[in-house]
């Protein structure tokens, strides 16, 4: 118990001393040209963080094969990609670093010390700015997309985990795991504008632009919380399997990874009724829908696989061996 206390003391001290520099992040959208350009077909490549393997697997989705495994270090977990797919950003909480990989040359081109436990990571689709949540010091950083220099910091709730950004780049949400809430952060001012309660221990957070909803996977209450994106109201909590990690929407279905059940809960995106439970590899974690809406890809931590689930048949159709302990926490398909 006292060890958990240490974090709190530490963060309280910091709060007194550390002042958030208000940098107006009104970057005039250098990458705006890319907005809306994202392929509507299928994703070609997956970038999977292997936490125990200290690496990033690059998987060719058409052939279902790992083509490269890049050494990263620092127990990488979080992953985000630039809008054009040219850059992969990896968060390594043990190494306390963010690592930038050039996806064309498959080389690490930059690495930077960021906070005490960088984990959740996301890219603003308009500005390219990289957001990293610090699990131990309860903050969100905004990083320069090329240099990884910290441009701004904002305090969140306790142990922010998942990070998601709206398609227009205006709002950032963090799932504050140990505060049972989402923080709402204005991307332009980089200030918290509000919080929304969720189920217990929200970990992954996903924005569903089609439905205008937000989903959190609640590790503590074995549920997902469905929230309305516009009104910011909690719509409903839906029970799922044991220790859910993240949610993806594909077609008219929501897919939830249940870490301790080696399964996905499949939920009707409209009625929010449970449709099916699909057996996948052990400890399914990071999950993302293919842009076609026809499949989801799941990283299975215990099985050391990236698995493709067909949305129509609700079966696993491809199992790709990857590195040891894949987590792929974030957006990993392009």
């Amino acid at each position, binding site marked *: *118990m*006292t*060890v*958990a*206390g*240490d*974090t*709190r*003391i530490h963060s*309280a*001290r910091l709060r007194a001393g550390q002042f958030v520099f208000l940098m107006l992040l009104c970057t005039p959208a250098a990458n705006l040209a890319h907005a809306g350009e994202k392929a509507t077909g299928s994703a070609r490549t997956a970038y999977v963080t292997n*936490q*125990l393997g200290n690496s990033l697997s690059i998987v060719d989705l058409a052939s279902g094969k790992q083509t490269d495994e890049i050494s990263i270090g620092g*127990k990488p*977990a979080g992953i985000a990609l630039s809008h054009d797919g040219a850059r992969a950003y990896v968060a390594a*909480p*043990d190494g*306390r670093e963010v690592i930038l990989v050039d996806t064309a040359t498959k080389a690490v081109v930059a690495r930077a010390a960021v906070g*005490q*436990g960088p*984990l959740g990571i996301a890219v603003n689709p308009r500005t390219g700015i990289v957001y990293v949540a610090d*699990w*131990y010091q309860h903050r969100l950083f905004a990083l320069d997309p090329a240099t990884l220099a910290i441009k701004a910091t904002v305090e969140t709730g*306790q*142990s922010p985990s998942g990070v998601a950004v709206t398609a227009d780049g205006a709002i950032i949400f963090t799932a504050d795991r*140990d505060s049972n809430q989402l923080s709402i952060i204005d991307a332009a001012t980089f200030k918290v504008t509000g919080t929304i309660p969720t189920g217990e*221990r929200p970990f992954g957070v996903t924005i569903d632009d089609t439905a205008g909803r937000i989903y959190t996977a609640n*590790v*503590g209450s074995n549920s997902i919380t469905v929230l309305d994106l516009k009104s910011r109201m909690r719509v409903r909590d839906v029970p799922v399997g*044991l220790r859910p990690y993240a949610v993806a929407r594909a077609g008219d279905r929501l897919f939830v990874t249940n870490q*301790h*059940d080696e399964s996905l809960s499949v939920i009707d995106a409209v009625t929010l009724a449970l449709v099916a439970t699909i057996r996948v590899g*052990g*400890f399914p974690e990071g999950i993302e829908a293919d842009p076609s809406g026809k499949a989801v890809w799941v990283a299975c*931590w*215990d099985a050391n696989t990236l698995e493709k689930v067909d949305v129509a048949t609700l079966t696993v159709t491809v199992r790709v061996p990857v590195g*040891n*302990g894949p987590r792929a926490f974030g957006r990993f398909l392009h």
Partner: protein
Amino acid sequence: MVRMLAYFLVALAALLPAAANAHGPSRQKVVSKIEINAPADKVWAVIGNFQDMSWHPAVAKTEGTGGNDVGATRTLTLKSGGAINEKLTKYSAAERGMGYEITDVDVKVLPVTNYAAQINVSGTAEKTIVEWRAAFYRGFVNNDPPPELSDEAAVKAVTDIVQGGLGALKKKFEGG
């Protein structure tokens, strides 16, 4: 002032359920298999009883409730002192497998948090393969753990339990 605040926060943290769920940055994994020259049914008959872990050399006593139903609990009293409380999360006699989690253990007894494991038995009338898979975080939930609560210490402690158990099983069935 800072000191008083610190004491207050420690006291507050002790009251919060958050502490029980907190964990280090990297989940660890131990997977071990053993082949036993004995019928799989016989091996499962021993391992498959969640209420009796006397086959494990480190366990002095098993006390629990709920039999082999999901949700059943047991307390393992260890020969070295200390106890581990566990809950059955999965059970299939047909597939000869079970999953369980540690609900409470002092990190001085076993330096892990958020421990979940599965034991699966497969094989034939002559040969059995027992696979034990464990997933857990280290005993120290924050950065910069002391050596006895590090990732390495957690992996070593769990490896000792898993391999000690599998070795004893083989011996039990094969004799010698």
